[in-house]
């Protein structure tokens, strides 16, 4: 059983809060003390997972950006169209980065939208998806949103479950299908229990994406008043919108 002091020591090691001598002492203990090595390796693997998650989120962000660029037709890539789109405050994420306004709803959407993690049936590396449900969830996890949309939609028809609807809504948001996403989250909020607050959070992001700031505010205020983990994010976003 690891002692509190050992945990603290390992944490300090990875947080770079030890001197060179102290670090050397930690490495000596890792080499000699099996229990301490276990604790050390555990911390290392946890930080590895955290970094993996961060990289994956940024990769998803770049993929979304790429699909938005891809959605432009060749004709629309002309200089004139590009800036016309910007002037119209279009829905393309690319515009978000050109329009450098900190409280721009599009930019806020981009900063705050992170796809809901597949906590329902996480894919285990090395195992193949054998059921339509596992395949759909795997496509979602791998960021293959076009495939995920098709499979989740079919799955929802057969098995109308809240978790399927949650991932489907997120998939539609990723693909820029805002109306479909909005409908998914409204259904999730009204007809099911358990995922109400996350559904409201994503619904508020749909409104933000559309530029319907007042609708987004109303929902965010509702979330802010809850004790859910989304409350702090809602508060932060509200402050930026005000």
């Amino acid at each position, binding site marked *: 059983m690891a002692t509190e002091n050992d*945990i603290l020591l390992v*944490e300090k090691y990875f*947080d770079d809060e030890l001197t060179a001598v102290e670090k050397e002492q930690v490495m000596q203990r890792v080499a000699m003390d*099996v229990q301490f*090595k*276990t604790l*050390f*390796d*555990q*911390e*290392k*693997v*946890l*930080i*590895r*997972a*955290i*970094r*993996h*998650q*961060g*990289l*994956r*989120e*940024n*990769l998803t*962000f*770049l*993929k979304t*950006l*790429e699909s938005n*660029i891809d959605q432009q037709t060749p004709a629309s890539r002309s200089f004139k169209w590009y800036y016309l789109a910007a002037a119209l405050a279009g829905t393309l*994420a*690319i515009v*978000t*980065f050109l329009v450098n306004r900190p409280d721009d709803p599009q*930019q806020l959407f*981009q*900063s705050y939208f992170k796809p809901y*993690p*597949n*906590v329902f049936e*996480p894919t*285990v*590396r*090395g195992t193949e998806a054998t059921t339509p449900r596992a395949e759909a969830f795997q496509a979602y996890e*791998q960021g293959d949103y076009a495939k995920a949309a098709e499979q989740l939609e079919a799955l929802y028809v057969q098995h109308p479950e809240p978790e399927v609807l949650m991932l489907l809504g997120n998939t539609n948001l990723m693909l820029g299908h805002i109306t479909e996403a909005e409908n998914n989250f409204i259904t999730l909020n009204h007809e099911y229990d358990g995922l109400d607050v996350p559904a409201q959070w994503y619904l508020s992001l749909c409104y933000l994406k559309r530029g319907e700031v007042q609708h987004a505010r109303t929902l965010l205020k509702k979330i802010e008043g809850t004790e859910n*983990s*989304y409350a*702090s*994010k809602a*508060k*932060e976003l509200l402050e930026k919108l005000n």
Partner: protein
Amino acid sequence: MLQNEIIEKIRSGGQAELGVIYEEHRKEFLQWISKEYHCSSDDGKDIYQLTILIFYDNIRQGKLEHLVSSVKTYLFGIGKNIALENMRKEKRYTPINQETWLNEYVADESGQGTDDSFFEFAKKALVKLGQPCQQLIELFYYEKKSIAEIASSMHYKNGETAKNQKCKCMARLRKLFEIEMTKPQNVVNHGY
């Protein structure tokens, strides 16, 4: 903008800066990589996305503080390494698998001593951790934000509160990891 100003902007910014860099060099990179390595447009995009991730990560990790060449040259260098490494592993040109690449990228830096199955348990534990803990520890360990920056962006009273919260989140994560490891279907003969 000067090359080193770009680095500073990325270091202090976030995804918006990542997007700006992505778009700025995208067209030229994609033309170059498809010509140089005869890869499809989609494969080129996959490599470019990983290239941008490494560039961003190197700045965040403090591995890249000053550029001696242009951003473009640096990016093309990373892209070339990714393409060559992929060809070396596969012995011939094969489309890159981003998911495998990400796993290997974080595995390489943690070196010996960690096991793939433990990594999977850690990922599951992280998902179960929920918000705001996930965001907080990601800002600290991935984005490499200081405790003061985290306190400000997550609206904690001060640095001390943010630091305490970070320690609590890590303690919770360790507990969730242990739960994952001790689940009957996950219990194997391992060192932990």
